[in-house]
Structure formats: structure tokens, C-alpha cells
């Protein structure tokens, strides 16, 4: 079963993402900060991460950099989630190796489709 990790420090957003991914039929893990996220990735080896940028402690960008710098997670798909609507953020995320980028608030349908597409392409 495809594993998806959802990372966000806003409990309600985390809750909604968790629900959406479960509904879509994935095995869902959650984390509410960067450190936890890296632990979960290391432990569970998810196929895709929905990664918020502003997190307490290490940020989403830091997490992404760590993922991409390791050979173990080459196939790991990363979708950045952010409430910062600015172009620079988007470009920075993509430059660091994010596979896609979603701005909050998002359309749930579009989000689920994006996740599915990415996983299909990879799979």
C-alpha cells in the first residue's frame, strides 16, 4: 500500500489532509514538525510527502534539502504546501527538488488528483 506522509503544524489542516489521503486510499502518517517528519520518513519510507513550509524548528525547506541530499529517498515524491503565495517561495521549493507545489487554501479535489498523478507517474 502506498504510504503518504502529511506534515503541517496546524492541527486542523493536518487533520483535513490526513482524512483526504485516507479517503484516497493511502496509508497515512502525520507529523507536526520537521524533526518528526524526518524520523517518520526514515522509519516508514513513504512514497510521497505533503510538506508544509513554515514549521516550528526546522522548516519545510530544510526537510526537503535533507531528503534530496540523501540517496535513500531518490524516489520520494514531495509536494510543498504553503500559505506563502509568493513566487520566490515556489521557485525555491522547485529548485530544491520539490515535485509539485500547492498554495493554501487548496482545492481538495485538485490536491488528491495531483497526489494520484505523481504516484502513478512514478509507479
Amino acid at each position: 500500500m502506498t504510504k503518504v506522509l502529511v506534515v503541517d503544524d496546524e492541527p486542523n489542516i493536518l487533520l483535513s489532509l490526513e482524512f483526504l489521503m485516507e479517503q484516497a486510499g493511502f496509508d497515512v502518517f502525520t507529523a507536526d514538525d520537521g524533526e518528526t517528519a524526518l524520523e517518520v520518513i526514515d522509519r516508514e519510507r513513504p512514497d510521497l510527502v505533503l510538506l508544509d513550509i513554515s514549521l516550528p524548528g526546522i522548516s519545510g525547506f530544510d526537510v526537503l534539502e535533507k531528503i534530496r541530499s540523501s540517496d535513500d529517498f531518490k524516489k520520494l515524491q514531495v509536494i510543498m504546501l504553503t500559505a506563502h503565495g509568493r513566487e520566490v517561495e515556489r521557485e525555491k521549493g522547485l529548485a530544491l527538488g520539490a515535485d509539485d507545489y500547492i498554495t493554501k487554501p487548496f482545492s481538495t479535489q485538485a490536491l488528491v488528483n495531483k497526489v494520484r498523478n505523481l504516484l502513478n507517474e512514478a509507479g
Partner: protein
Amino acid sequence: MRSDPIILIIAFGYLALLFIIAAWGDRRAEKGRSVIGSSTVYALSIAVYCTAWTFYGSVGRAAEHGPSFLLIYFGPTLAMLLGWLLIRKMVRIARAQRITSIADFISARYGKSGRIGALVALIAVIGVIPYIALQLKAITISYGVLTSYPGSATDHTPDGLFLLDKSFWIAIVLAVFIILFGTRQLDASERHEGMVTAIAFESIIKLLAFLAVGIFVTFFLYSGPVDLFQRAAEHPELAQSLSLADVPGGSAGWVGLLVLSTLAFITLPRQFQVLVVENVDENHLRRASWMFPLYLFAINIFVIPVALAGLMLGSAAQSPDSFVLTLPLAAGKEVLSLFVFIGGLSAATGMMIVETIALSTMISNQLVMPMLLKMRSLNIEQQEDLSGLLLGIRRIAIILILFLGYLYHALIGDSYSLVTIGLVSFAAAAQFAPALLLGLFWRGATQAGAAAGLIGGFAVWCHTLLIPGFAQSGWIDVSLLNDGPWGIAWLRPYNLFGLEGYDIYTHALFWTMLVNVGLIVVVSLFTRQSNLEQTQAALFTEALRQDALQNTPLWRGQTSRGELRRLIHRYLGHRATQRLFTQYQPDTAARETKIDDDTLTASPGLIASAEKQLAGALGNSSARVLINSVVKGEALDLNAVLSILDTTSQTLEYNRQLEQKSKELARIGEELRSANDRLRELDRLKDEFVAMVSHELRTPLTSIRAFAEILRDTPNLNDEKKAHFLDVIVRESERLSRLIEEILDLARLESGRMTLKPERLDLVQALHQSIDAVARLYEERSIELKVSLARDCAEVVADPDRLQQVMINLLDNARKFASTQDGRVNVTLEVVGHCFRLSVEDNGEGIPENQRELVFEKFHQVEQGSITQPKGRPKGTGLGLPICRGILAHLGGRLWVEDPENLGGARLVMELPCAPDQRVITQE
């Protein structure tokens, strides 16, 4: 004691002393420690006005005509008192235009006209030679009196063989002296420092000598002035001498003498020389304007006592002109009489020295040089170095002048009294006054007018004073005086057009001035000025207005540096040329491209400066001719000069204003820069704020949208989940509303538009209400809230709603940050001074010391994210504390973070001033 050799030795010894003093003055000047840089020396040198005529003649005139001799000294006093206006102007012009003499001055004023210069020089020579003769005569007579007393001096007058005549030898010695000290430099406008020093010294000697004889007569021959006057009063014929009425020509004579001496004081060539040409600093005029009149007073104070004493002595006193000598001689005081003789000698030589220098400069610059320049056949312009020639001309002129003076003295001098010769010269010099004074103050005076005035005035002077003098000497038939020329009665020299009742000087002054001034004014009104004349007229009349003018280049023409260099070199020699051209270097760019001086254009400044240098040596008119010969193009016309004048003064004003403006601009620029920096910073903060606000708004919106869509797209959702999700939507909507509310609050606080309705209220009561509002939330997390109040009632002035907002915020924060297990919050109220302090402390992790101000920044927690707050609960907006602080500031209070006291977590303290005249406080 009074033998020929001794007197001669003393006299020539005195002249030798003059040589030494003059040499010393020159040496000091070369060492840069000028003697004449002193206003006292300047004032003393002006006293060259007092000649042998004063020394011997004043007593003579007082004996004959009473106190009227004083008028000759009132005039100069008047002139000196007005000097600040008039003489200062002349000094300034002379410096700017390198004026060498009064002839040069007047010529320069009227368009640097050679004709005018020559005319003035000619009149000066003719008018003043008798005056020089007068000095020689005085020396001769005094010498005769000294050697022959008690015999008659006339026994010893020259017997025709001039080699035996002492005055001839005096003239020779003076010629040598003047050539040595008067023609050292070529540039006549440079000062004759040694000469001026010697003149100042002579002024001291003659004053001391006269005071000595005066004191001797008053206090030793008589026992004081009272005694002297009482004794004089016993002689009724003497009393008349003291009457003011006994002036030739009556009251008109008074006015005539006063005017004559005032004018002559300025226009006599030697006076112009010491007053204007030799002046080193126009500020010296200040001291001279009282010191010189004082000198005149001192030298005249004993004139009447000496005259009375001489008259009372009777025939033993001989001629009144020699009373000063005969009185000591009659009393047997030979040393004193010798001293008096030296005093007279100093008065005579001083005058002769300065006068001769002034005249020789005029002769060489205004008469000879222009003639030589005109005579092409001499090819004078082709000669290499003409500076030697110039000095030669000047030296010959000196010898000539003294020789003419001697001739005049030897041939006709005897027929006049001292005073008569002097006043004739005065009248001649006074002819310069209209051209000079009108030229200084009336821009419209033209060259033709000045020439007409000078010629007319001089002609009338010849007719009314010079020729009648010849007649009185017996050269011409005396019938000229009585019947008029060719028997025409109304042309009688002393009664022109039948004018009767005046003394001859007032009579002559009246007619000469009438003709002179009349011609200048009338002819000027009907003639036009050339461009150069207009320029010069403007420069002269506006001299006091504009200092910068002397540096304004007034040339529009062009010439090469090489050509100009050759010209200057010919006339001024190598050193002066070198000095001038080093001062005006071509700019470096020009030097690099064109090395040859012949291809380099001379700058207008260089041309103007070269002309001034030439003018200093040759006079203005010759300098003009020479510069014209190499420069193509004309000098600026009047309008150009006036516009330069105006622009210069305007430029000065503009510059001042500009400087002020640019300072102001710099200041404004600085202000703008800092304002701009501030704005940029504000702009950056605004961008940041907008980004943060949008981030903050997106967060609850994301949850709301996500759950709303979930609820919509998931029909088979169980009720429990549905309720939970709906609850999230509601809470996030509330959060969103709160956020918007807070953003608006913040905007109002920052723009100062927040409307507060302060009223007197009880802080304790308000605190309880706030606690009630958060009580449920505290219970939910089972946090213990402990309240300890220092008093039951704490009145403050505040907006109740806003105050509650603040307190709820603080309580809510404490609840959020209190420890998850066993959470505790302490609220305390204290009185500190005139304020109430409410502190809220939790037992959470606290705020690190370096963050205690940061928490009051907007969205701080979002950006920093460093204060680890308990997870799993919605965060605050990050605007609460900034808003609280803003509200408290509006209420006159404060809000800050303090070290924890009991619980070890964050401790926030708010302070509000007590309400005014609160009884509770005063009771305490």
C-alpha cells in the same frame, strides 16, 4: 658760531642725515618690515603740506594780516575730515589703476587721454615751479639772516654768480637725493619708502623747531602768553593785527582762502603724491584725519605770539617773514636760531623732494614718453630694453625741475613775498579740482569738457595771477595792472570785468573757477564719451561700490602671450615680466598642446594686468597706447562694464544666497535621505506585514475550505466526524474573524485612529470580569489561576472594553503557555508610586531574555517560531501583544516582560496610572 662754514656744515650734515634715514627706510622695506606701514608715518608725511612758507611765512602773514593765516590750515583740516569719503575713493582708484600722479589720475578718468595728462602735467610744472623757487628763496633768506644778523640779509643775496649761491648747491644736493631715493624703481606707483620715511622725519624736525622758538618767545622772552598779550595790548597799532576784520578782501577773502587751501591740499602734486600714491593702506586715513589737523594746530599755536613779539621788538626784528630767526638772534640764542634754521631747511627740502618726484613722474610719463612713442622715426618700439631710458628721462626731469626752480628764484623770486608765491601756486593747482572732483562724482563729465575746463581755468590763472606777477617784478610794464592789456580797462588782471573789492586770490579763484567749472559742465553736456571714457568714468565714480572691479578683466581684444611678453619686457625689464607671466600661467591643457608662447592667446586677465603694470611705470595713457599696439580689438564699452559691475555685485549676492541655498539643500537632502530610508524601511515592513497577514489569513481559510469540501464530497460521513469537522469550520471561522478584527485594531492603533472612550473605572472589577470571561478555558485545561490583590479598589481612567481586551489577551496567553501538566497562572495587583501594576505569570517555559522585546513585534511568533509552544492547539495570531501594548500606550500605561517571580514562566506586566485625586492612594 654763525660763520659760513659752520652753518654750511650743519645744513649739509642735516641733508646727509636725511640720506641715512631714507636709506634705512628703503632697507627696512626690502626686508619686509616697512616703516611706512604705519598710519602715524602716513599722517606725518602729509604734513609736507607745511613748507618753508608755513615755517617763515605764517608769522609774516600774521604780522601783516592777523589770524587770517589760519585759513590756509582750516582748509586741509576740512579736507582731511571729509577724507574718508573723498580721499579713500581716490586711494582705491589709484591702487586699482596703478596711478602714478595727479596728471595720470585725471588722464585715466577721462579715457586714459594723453592730451589731458599732458595738459595737467604742463599746468603743474608751470604752476608749481614758483613754489619750488619759494623754498629756495626761503633757504637763501634764512641763511642770509643767520649769517649777517644784525646786518641786513639783502647784503648777501646772490651777486649773479650762481656758483657762489648756496641755494644753487642746496638744489644740487637735493637733486642727488631725489634721484637716489625717488627713482629707485621704475614703477612710480610703487612706493618710495625711503623718501616717505625721510619726509615724516622732516615733519617732526620742523614741528619741534617751531615749537622751540614759540616756547622760547612766549615763556622766556615773556613770562607766558598772558604777559605777552597784555604787553601787546599796550600798543594800539598791534591790537589791530589781531582783529579778524583785517583780512584782504574782507569776508569774501576768508571764504576764498578757505576754498583755495582746501582744493590745493588735494590737488597740489606733492599732496596727491603723499595722500594717494604713497598711501599703503586706506585705513591709515582714519588716524591721519585727526592726527594731521592736530599737527597743523601744533605748528600754528605759537604763530601769533611770535608775530606779536617780533612786532614789539621793532626794527631789530627785521622782515616779519624772518621773525622766527631774528627773535632768538636778538636775544643772543644762537643754538636755537640754528635749530630754527634747520627746521626751516627741513620744511623747504621736504616740499622740494616730494614735489620734484611728483613733477618728474608727470614730465616723464605724461609729456616725454607719449612724445617719444609718437615719434616713429626713433623706432622706440623696436628697442630691446627701455626701462633704463625711462629712468634716465625721469632723472633728467628732476634736474630740470630743480634748475627751473632755481632760475625762477634767482631771476624774479625777489619781487614776491613768500605768501604770495605760495598762493599763486595754490591757485594753479586748484585748477585741477573741477576735473578731478567732478570726475569722481559725475559720470557725465567728458574728456572734451575736462580739457576745456583745464585750458580755460589755466588761461584765466595766467591772466589774473601769473602775468601780473611778472608785471610786479618789472618784467612787463606795470601799466598792464592799472590800465589793462592794450588799455582795455575791463581786462585789468586784478579787476577782471570790473570786479572790485576782492583780494587778488579770491578774485582769481572766482574767475578761474567760474570759467573752469562752467566749461567742464557745458562742454560735457554737449559732447559724447568714447567707449573707454565711459568705462573709466564708471570705474571712477563707482570706485567705492565695487572692490572686485580691480580684478575684472576689461579687455575684449586678443593677442598672443609672446607678443605681450616682448612688450612688457621692453618697458619693464626681465624680472617684472617674469613675475607677471608666472602669475598668469596658461591652463595646463593649453600648455600641453601648444608649447609656443606665440600661439597661445593671452587671457583677458593677463592683458589687463599687463596694462596696469605698464601704467605703473608709464602712466595710463602711454600704457593704453602700447597695449593697443599689440592687442587687436577694443576694451569693453560702458554697458559691458556696467553689466560687469552689476553682475559682480549681483554675483556676490547670488553667491551668498546660493551658498545658503546649497547648505539648505544639503540639509534637506540629508533629511530626505533619512526620510527615504525610513520610508523604504516602512515599505519593507508593510510588504512583510501584508505577506504575514495573507499567510495568517490563509491558514484558517485552508482548514475551512478543506473541511467544507470534505463535507460536500463525502456523503457517507458519520455523524461524529461530521460534527467534529463542522466544529473545526466554526472555530477556524471565529479565528479568521478575530484575526481580521485584530488587524483592523492594529491598523487603527498605528494610524492613531483608534477611538478610545476613557472613563473612570475600577481595575479590580474589570480584572474579575476578564477572569470570568476566560474561566471556562482555564477549566478546560484545568489550569489553576491564583489572584492576589494589594487592594480592593483600584481606580484608573481607561476605555473599559479595550482594557478588558488587554487583560483577556494576557490571561489567554498565560493559559496557552502554561505548563501542560499542572498548569498554573498567578495574577497580582500592586501599587507602585502613582501607578497600578498588574502582572500575569505562568509556569511555562518562559521567554528568553533576548526575546522579551521581540514578542511585541507583529507576527513575531510566526516568523521566529522559536518559542516552542505546546503543540496540537491553534496558534495565536501574533498580533495580540503588539495590540495590547498599543492600547496601553494610548491609555498612558506600559506593558513589558519581566523576570519570573514565583512560577518560573513568562511574566507580563501592565501598568496604568492611578486616576487623579484618588482617595485610596492619598490615604495610604
